[in-house]
């Protein structure tokens, strides 16, 4: 009963925030629209899930196949995860009232609210990873095999949410091996095997799916849209990419810059035992997992200094604090309050506009036009009004518009067989063109003079901040 109440309360909070943002400022996070558009394509083309593409981790798309409403999906999944986390931690450790205080402080942290309502896929990854660690610890405490099973399964699932989890396999192998140093060698090997089997299995499943649908098992790595090729846009991160030392330096720098946001994480460390040789206290290795993720992301060039990454640190800290029974200590609560306040004010300096404006909104501010989806909605409306049924578009950039029109079949998109034919002779195949003012947009490159209002055989209907809409001169009724 308590779980149901908590679920509805959290759902209401997430939904209310997201709904207000959308109705007042037409804001919804681009990633949510990306998943929603892919699900739209999959369901409106004879339920071809392969149209989602096998480039990005698939889990985030799946709920959209059932309910294709970004706000609703995000709120439901996040509320469910938060409830599970909250109820399970309370049930497992039966904390006193003081110890309970840290949980709501975390859950009302503005950055927590941001990922719960707008970046549920990130939130999912963080929760799965944290719970996987939590169950590993529970196995260490109790020796129950169920915990290893669940922990291995959750860790395996993280791969389908964020491919970076495979970087954690060596960390798990080393830390589990060291953590179980009291046991015999076969047990130590066994626990590692059980723990990493799911993630290895899921990796091979993904290779197989890539192979049968795209002909290349490594498509998700080699594709130009690959998850691993999302290039950082900040110079110092570009320079650090591929360099062990520079990545390390940047990781330490990020930890320092974010220290107010992740203060509880540091507060827990001294409680874990005296900081002697690392191998002697391997729990540290598991606890340092968020730092490893930070480091590997920087090294592989997939890092962007989002402040919401602090939530992973906070989740780890609260799990370990519960485990070490310091979650109710004054210093821990105090550090949580500092993290909460920092999130409220420091986020104003974030380089990610989404989290910056989101937290600003929570403080009573408004959402900038730069991240608002007003133009996307207007363009979708134009396409509907002009009854464009064959709009040629590169949805790598125009997916919000595709989603807002509500019908992906009105578009000729890269996954369609005729896309490249249509791109070579647009006037023959398309009745409208949706061009993005981005140098990498395929149509923008096809019509280099489009920004001057010229696209052969088409007439410019709309020229906005982000998009241009052209209509075919031979289109009926035009």
């Amino acid at each position, binding site marked *: 009963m308590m779980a149901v109440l908590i679920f509805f309360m959290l759902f209401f909070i997430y939904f209310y925030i997201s709904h207000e943002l959308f109705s007042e400022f037409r804001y919804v996070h681009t990633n949510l629209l990306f998943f929603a558009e892919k699900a739209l394509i999959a369901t409106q083309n004879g339920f071809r899930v392969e149209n989602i593409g096998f480039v990005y981790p698939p889990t985030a798309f799946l709920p959209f196949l059932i309910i294709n409403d970004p706000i609703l999906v995000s709120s439901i999944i996040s509320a469910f995860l938060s409830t599970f986390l909250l109820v399970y931690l309370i049930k497992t450790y039966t904390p006193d009232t003081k110890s309970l205080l840290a949980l709501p402080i975390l859950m009302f942290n503005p950055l927590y609210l941001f990922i719960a309502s707008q970046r549920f896929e990130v939130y999912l990854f963080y929760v799965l990873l944290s719970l996987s660690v939590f169950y590993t610890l529970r196995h260490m405490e109790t020796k129950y095999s169920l915990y290893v099973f669940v922990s291995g*399964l959750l860790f395996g699932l993280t791969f389908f949410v964020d491919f970076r989890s495979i970087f954690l396999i060596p960390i798990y192998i080393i830390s589990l091996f060291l953590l179980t140093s009291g046991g015999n060698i076969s047990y130590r090997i066994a626990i590692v*095997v*059980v723990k990493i089997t799911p993630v290895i299995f899921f990796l091979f499943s993904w290779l197989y*799916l890539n192979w049968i649908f795209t002909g290349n098992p490594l498509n998700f790595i080699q594709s130009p849209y690959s998850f691993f090729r999302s290039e950082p846009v900040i110079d110092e991160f570009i320079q650090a990419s591929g360099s062990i030392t520079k990545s390390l330096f940047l990781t330490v720098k990020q930890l320092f810059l974010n220290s107010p946001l992740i203060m509880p994480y540091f507060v827990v460390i001294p409680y874990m035992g005296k900081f002697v040789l690392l191998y002697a206290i391997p729990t540290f290795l598991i606890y340092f997992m968020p730092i490893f993720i930070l480091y590997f992301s920087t090294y592989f060039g997939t890092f962007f200094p989002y402040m919401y990454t602090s939530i992973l640190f906070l989740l780890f800290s609260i799990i370990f604090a519960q485990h070490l029974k310091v979650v109710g200590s004054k210093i821990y609560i105090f550090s949580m309050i500092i993290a909460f306040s920092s999130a409220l004010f420091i986020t104003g300096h974030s380089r990610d506009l989404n989290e910056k404006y989101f937290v600003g909104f929570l403080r009573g501010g408004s959402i900038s036009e730069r991240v608002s989806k007003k133009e996307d909605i207007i363009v979708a409306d134009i396409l509907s009004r002009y009854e464009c049924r064959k709009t040629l578009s590169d949805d790598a950039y125009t997916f919000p518009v595709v989603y807002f029109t509500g019908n992906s079949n009105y578009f000729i998109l890269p996954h369609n067989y005729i896309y490249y034919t249509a791109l070579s002779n647009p006037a023959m195949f398309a009745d409208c063109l949706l061009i993005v003012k981005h140098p990498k947009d395929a149509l923008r490159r096809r019509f280099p003079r489009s920004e001057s209002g010229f696209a052969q055989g088409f007439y410019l209907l709309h020229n906005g901040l982000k998009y241009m809409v052209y209509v075919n001169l031979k289109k009926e009724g035009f």
Partner: protein
Amino acid sequence: MHMVSSLIYGTTSKRSSIGSLLVEKGYITEEQLKEALEYQHKSGGRLGWTLASLGYIRRFDLYKALAEHFGFPLILGVENILAQVDLKLVKSFDVQELIRYEIIPAYKDDFTVKLFTSNPGSNEFEKFISRYFEGYLVELYIITDLDLVKTLEHIHKDFLIDKSIRGLFYLSPEYSASLVFSKGQVFFMGLALFAILIGLYINPVLTLTAIILIAQLFYILSIAFKLIVSVAGAKSEMQQFITEEEVRALRDDELPVYTVLVPVYKEPEVIGILMESLKKMDYPQNKLDVILLLEEDDTETLESAKKHKPPANWRFIIVPNSIPKTKPKACNYGLFFAKGKYLTIYDAEDIPEPDQLKKAVLAFKKAGEDYICFQAALNYFNKDENFLTKMFTLEYSYWFDYLLPGLFNLKLPIPLGGTSNHFDVEKLREIGAWDPFNTTEDADLGVRAFGKGYKVGIINSTTYEEANARVKNWIRQRSRWIKGYMQTFLVHSRNIGKLYRTVGFKGMLSFLFLIGGTPLTFLINPIMWLMFLVWLITQTKSLEPLFPPLLLHISLFNLLIGNFIGIYLNMIAVFKRGYYELLPYGFLNPIYWILHSIASYRSLYELFTKPFYWQKTQHGITKYKPPLIGS
């Protein structure tokens, strides 16, 4: 002639005198008497029986002394007894009652009754007299318990055999597998086949797609079901149903008589394994009613069993030759002679954990009146022998440590395992005991018991068996099991409405996925694998019409996630058992599943050609020596 009520044997006051007599006669030593008295003080029971169970006295000597002690004549030999028995009078009594009271009413006139008993002076004896022969003068003769059983067997042979074979049919014909297919089932199968043929004629692609879709949906639901049940089963690790403390706190004198049925056939090599294990059971030996059930033509096992010098309180019962020659028939036969409040079955090569019987007694006490049976886990002592025994161990570790406890925790029907199931004897008799026509009588019994409103539980104790180490032998055994599952499914699905009413929605799902689903999965698997292999090797496009997008995705999910879950659950089960070296074998499960499919097709063939044929599993082929548990 004597008034029976005046002769009380077995009370405390008489103990020393029978003991002294035995010492005086030189049958036992003073030390043995002292030990037996201490044992009796701790566990209760009769002194003579205690001495016999400790192996200090021969049955013949004991009865000779008893006759002398009570002053009654002793008659030895079935022929001598039969010569004095009025068959009509004996047949007018319920044979089970006579076995329970250990009495044969031999002759009766208006004033006198002549009784043969192997248990003189007991309370049961008095009850019998007051119930049937109140006011009669009783002429009493002592006979041995074995002579009593053999005499009653001789007199009631046809009746006992008939009841052993058709007892369930007489009680509840709808639950008997003697009828393989009901008319309704034949009609339904014919209709389904006809519909498929018509479908294939009109639109073969659509028909095949529909069949594949049904199969894939079945897979996906089956996977979900197994996962849910396994997670529920994993909780058992955290909450031991019976704790070691509870076992230690149990007093021996509170323990009831426990019958152990050991149905054996041509197993001279392994019979000793169980016999030695039973001697080491942590249960008062004088309260163990061990019955070795041997077939008439199996003299070698009998000879081998005798060589292991069973205590005098163990009994050998010869099951008369009749068809079907099955284990459940032997068990039904043995049930007539069971004296225990509870009963269990062990195979000849079983090594139960010593405290298993005590745990079962506690389980019955704890769980309540509606429990009919508790199943102990089964596992293998020769797990490391070869690939097959390793895979078998993986399978059993999952089945008994995760799946069955999961069914128990979710209050679902439990298909019992072949041995180590512990019954409440009265309830077992009430529901008609085992179905001799069903080749997995145990699984059937579990479902039937559930349908009759009883529950089956799981106890946290293990019996170690010999895993089948040869492929042909394994396939024989497995095809019998799978055929039994098919029979059980057919029996209980004759009236789906009734099944639903008795087991409920959850129970129905469990029945469909576990009893029906197990053979079905193995029958469908090879077809799907073949399609997959053809596609993998040839990359043919000809199969594409059969797999529209949604179906393709479901199939892929089953192929990848379904198989993964199957493998991972097996891995975690051996992890729990601490069999870490078996973990990598989890990945070889698909090879093992191929063997299951071969056995399934053989079962299907046999279901139509020889449904009641009992494929005998050959035991004693392992090169591994059984461990010494409880020694």
